[in-house]
């Protein structure tokens, strides 16, 4: 059924007679100049071909016109001229053979055919491309976005939507070519809608008819704009979605209470930059220029395809040379930001500063700028941000700063401008944002970290030298050895501290301007009594490796229950009998236990110490009850059980397992473990 596509080939057919007629014209011209060349047959054949293809064009065009939606007047002229052209071509074919008529009529007919063809073609062009296609030049024209001072001035239809429709829709949907009977070139046409309905009709809650069509998948037949035409950008889609959901309104402004932020931000590009930038005839810097500047230590950043304005940095220069100044001067209108941090500036620089018409931000941190130099900033109309942090500017600068009318941000942290000066300036320029440094109230003096005790070992033979680490200079550390919390009346911790006896060391750090640290405490234990042997009432769990020897080897185990040094008991208590080689004066026992609640390991519920002189009759001397608290990670503690000093050779230590995991545990009621690695007797 190729036939149904026949009329679609009209745009192809119409070009055939044009080309052929053109060629025939050349042959005729050559033949006329040089009679000896016999082109007559070719010319005749060409005219016949021309006529035949013209017939095809007319026929296909006739059917195409049946589809409608073309401007009626233009179409009528197109048809009339098309028929006339074809008829003229027929006449040409007929008269060309006749010798009588030939010489006189052929040139006239030929010129008439050309004229008619031009007319037909022109009207055809108007039908497909629009009347203004021919004389509208797109070359060298900028995007015609209306620029306004604030988006409040934008009219939704005329300033925003209409240009979009004109760019993307009206090539098919306009008064002279109403595809689908839709005319988007006029307000009335928009309101009237097309065959499928109005733009504003709701397809569902979310989408208007227009939105529906532009959101369809690209290969959907109904997708608009159709395949091959330019695809709408997201921003445009967002605008059209929003606009067609509103009630149709010709003169409404863009901004109302309901305008969503997302639309407002898209619309922002319609607003003009309000600064008094002087960018006329300004060119984007070339690579070559940039490299030349770099050779002079002048670094250019922010070169972009849109704006000729760039950022320049010329930092850390002991002096700015004449060459550098000259180079800067050549591009002075291109400079939007100038960073001169820590450079030494000369008067010559300040003299040329007024020529930096587009300077928006200047950073003079750490430079030698003086109050008087600020005079030269007066002509900088575009200047918004002035950074004078870490300079010698004083209150005398206020009078010059007041004159900078466009200034928005002023950085004066670590200058000699005092609170009074700032107040004065702020009163004069209430909108100026003066940044003077952090709010001391927000960052009020924080607490010191507690000192860090470097020693890992807590057991020692005769004495131990304790060393601490405190990162903040000038911190004073105080300590106690009796378990109380130290304060600034206690002893000062010097370079190091030597302990000769078992003692709990507590430390605290102080420094002017800081809050004192949290106290920290660490028990140091002297190995005084060697336990001769030990017996256990029951064997510890074999898989963790602990045994009698490990219990009294006076070595510290690491915080890992799998280290092989821990004696482990699950769901049962632990009782151990310790034998000293001879009766000794003793007054305390330390038991090292592990707690790792996620691994079901808890501190014991209690530790009870009983003494005996003969190894048979034990007498309880003290019992320590321990609270089981939930905690994270792994902990270890030396539990200390003290009792009145007395002579004894045998000790019995009862370590009470809590037996069942507590209710807060993630497996409550499970058989819990107790891990012990060392028992020390003092």
């Amino acid at each position, binding site marked *: 059924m190729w036939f149904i596509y026949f009329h679609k080939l009209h745009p192809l057919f119409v070009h055939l007679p044009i080309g052929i007629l053109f060629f025939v014209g050349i042959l005729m011209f050559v033949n006329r100049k040089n009679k000896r060349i016999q082109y007559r047959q070719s010319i005749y054949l060409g005219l016949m071909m021309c006529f035949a293809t013209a017939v095809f064009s007319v026929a296909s065009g006739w059917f195409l016109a049946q589809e409608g939606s073309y401007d009626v007047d233009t179409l009528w002229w197109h048809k009339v001229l098309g028929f006339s052209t074809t008829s003229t071509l027929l006449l040409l074919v007929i008269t060309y053979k006749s010798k009588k008529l030939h010489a006189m009529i052929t040139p006239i007919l030929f010129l008439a055919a050309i004229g008619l063809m031009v007319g037909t073609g022109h009207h055809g062009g108007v039908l497909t491309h629009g009347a203004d296609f021919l004389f509208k030049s797109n070359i060298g024209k900028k995007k015609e976005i209306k620029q306004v001072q604030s988006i409040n001035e934008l009219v939704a239809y005329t300033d925003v939507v209409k240009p979009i429709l004109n760019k993307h829709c009206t090539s098919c949907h306009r008064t002279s070519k109403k595809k689908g009977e839709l005319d988007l070139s006029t307000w009335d046409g928009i309101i009237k809608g097309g065959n499928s309905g109005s733009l504003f009709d709701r397809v569902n809650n979310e989408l208007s008819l227009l939105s529906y069509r532009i959101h369809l998948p690209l290969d959907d037949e109904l997708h608009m704009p159709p395949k091959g035409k330019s695809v709408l950008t*997201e921003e445009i889609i967002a605008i059209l979605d929003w606009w067609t959901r509103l009630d149709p309104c010709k003169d409404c402004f863009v901004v109302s209470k309901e305008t969503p*932020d*997302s639309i407002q*931000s*898209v619309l922002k590009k319609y607003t003009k930059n309000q600064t008094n930038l002087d960018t006329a005839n300004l060119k*984007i810097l070339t*690579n070559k220029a940039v490299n030349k500047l*770099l050779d002079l230590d002048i*670094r250019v*950043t*922010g*070169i*972009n*395809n*849109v*704006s000729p*304005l760039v*950022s320049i*940095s010329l930092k850390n220069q002991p002096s700015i040379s004449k060459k550098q100044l000259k180079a800067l001067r050549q591009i002075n209108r291109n400079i939007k930001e100038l960073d001169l941090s820590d450079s030494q500036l000369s008067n010559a620089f300040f003299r040329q500063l007024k020529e930096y018409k587009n300077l928006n931000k200047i*950073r003079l*941190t750490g430079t030698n700028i003086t109050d008087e130099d600020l005079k030269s900033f007066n002509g900088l109309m575009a200047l918004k*941000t002035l*950074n004078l*942090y870490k300079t010698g500017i004083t209150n005398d600068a206020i009078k010059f700063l007041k004159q900078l009318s466009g200034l928005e*941000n002023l*950085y004066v*942290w670590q200058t000699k401008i005092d609170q009074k000066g700032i107040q004065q300036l702020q009163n004069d320029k209430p909108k100026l944002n003066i*940044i*003077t*440094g*952090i*709010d001391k109230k*927000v*960052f009020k*003096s*924080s*607490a*010191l*970290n507690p000192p860090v005790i470097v020693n890992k070992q807590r057991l020692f033979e005769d004495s131990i030298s304790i060393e601490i680490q405190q*990162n*903040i*200079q000038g911190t004073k550390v105080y300590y106690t050895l009796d378990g109380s919390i130290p304060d600034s009346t206690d002893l000062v911790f010097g370079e190091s501290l030597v302990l000769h006896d078992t003692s709990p060391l507590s430390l605290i750090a102080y420094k002017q*301007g*800081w809050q004192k*640290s949290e106290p920290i405490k660490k028990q140091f234990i002297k190995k005084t009594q060697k336990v001769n042997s030990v017996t256990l009432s029951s064997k510890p769990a074999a898989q963790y490796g602990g045994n009698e020897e490990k219990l009294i080897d006076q070595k510290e185990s690491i915080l890992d229950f799998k280290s092989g040094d821990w004696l482990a008991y699950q769901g049962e208590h632990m009782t151990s009998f310790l034998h000293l080689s001879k009766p000794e004066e003793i007054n305390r026992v330390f038991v090292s236990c592990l707690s790792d609640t*996620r691994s079901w390991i808890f501190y014991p519920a209690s530790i009870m110490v009983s003494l005996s002189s003969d190894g048979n009759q034990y007498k309880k001397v003290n019992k320590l009850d321990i609270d089981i608290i*939930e*905690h*994270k*990670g792994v902990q270890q503690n030396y539990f200390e059980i003290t009792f009145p000093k007395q002579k004894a050779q045998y000790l019995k230590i009862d370590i009470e397992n809590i037996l069942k995991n507590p209710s*807060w545990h*993630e497996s409550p009621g499970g058989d819990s473990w107790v891990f012990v690695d060392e028992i020390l007797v003092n």
Partner: protein
Amino acid sequence: MNPFEERSLQLNRRAFLGKSAIGIGTAALSGLLGMSFFSKGKDGIITENKGIKGVLNKLHHPAQAKRVIYLFQSGGPSQLELFDYKPLLDKRRGTNLPSSIRNGQRLTGMSSGQESFPLVGSGKMFPFKQYGQSGAWFSDLLPYTSKIADDLCVVRSMYTEAINHDPAITFFQTGSQQPGRPSMGAWMSYGMGSENEDLPAFTVLLSRGTGRPQGQPLYSRLWGNGFLHSLHQGVQFRSAKDPVLYLNDPAGINRVNRRKMLDYLDALNNKQYQEYGDPEIASRMAQYEMAYRMQNSVPDVMSIDDEPDYIYQMYGPDSTRPGSYAANCILARRLAEKGVRFIQLYHMGWDAHFDLPSQIKGQAKDVDQASAALVMDLKQRGLLDDTLVIWGGEFGRTNYSQGTLSQTNYGRDHHPRCFTIWMAGGGIKPGMVYGETDEFGYNITKNPVHVHDFQATILHQMGIDHEKLVYKHQGRRFRLTDVEGHVVNDIIS
């Protein structure tokens, strides 16, 4: 055949075919005009004495930010304890997560086997208050960050596609869940080069959290260069004696000797380069020179002893401990002042599957004061307006408890469907809250921001169109946002 020639032929077969496809005529023309047909190395990897030169001669549009400080919170901080206040979760504490809310979402293997999903809010433990003009919610865990609310843009509607750490961090860093693509900082180095010839354009600082010290590890491919030139990979600065590994000269070699050695090596390399024209030789030479200069510049930037006491006070007591997050924040500011383009911090330990209340206390204390101090410190120096500071993790945490919910203890599993990050400076609107989540804190109800959107926005602020910064590799063009990503215009000022 000489292996080098073989390699260069292999390298250029594709280029040859690609160019012939356009037409042998072009090839002939380029030959006639004396262009080197096999020339490579014009794709942004060249260095000169002025640092790394980016591939973009011009940015795509004016940039609002010149550098990025990305405070990456590794492990997935819980938005529900820090930023996203959900009173309903307290009201419904202990009741099961309605299936209409979960909507069949796939959970991780760590909590998918749970019989119930008891909801849990921040409760009385971490009460929330509103701060600043935007009325942004912050919990008491963030006493400092909350006070600078007017300088922050809090995005509560981030979401990601990955549910586990490695793919999620890789996704955030490279735009793809599979390893092998360049990290965000590497893309910026490739596109824009370095601003300081003595330092790399992309630096990395790591710290461990006190909340969960043995948490998820990190690995150097997260700041890797992927298929870009190795010049663009992130350089890790450590707190130890050698801030940059293998940078210092071996014992017995002084700088004069080193210089001499480099000069001779340069001469040799130059000879080789003349002969083969392999661009790798040129960039290797440049790297030696960069390392030589970094021997001076790195110790200078890393020794923070010259910072005054009030700076330490501002960043908090941890800032004096080398290797801490707070100390890294001070370093980040120093690197920013030196013109390093992309400074990435990683703070580990946010992965609170259990013991969340105690873990998050430690984590928040690690980062709260120092992060806020960094923003304010940049502000008082006038650097905040062109430095983009980002704080956020790779995903959020579930609104239900992983494991048993007790009176005082619970955990939270990974949650990719919504989480919170904040940004400050660099042309992002200050004092703003963007996006909303539902009452359950499970799904996003307004203005969702995908990871690719986030990446597109960062590039946009740097003056780069995320669709145009591409690198051709294995026959197709790659970009940070792959084939997706939309700039979040709403949060740009």
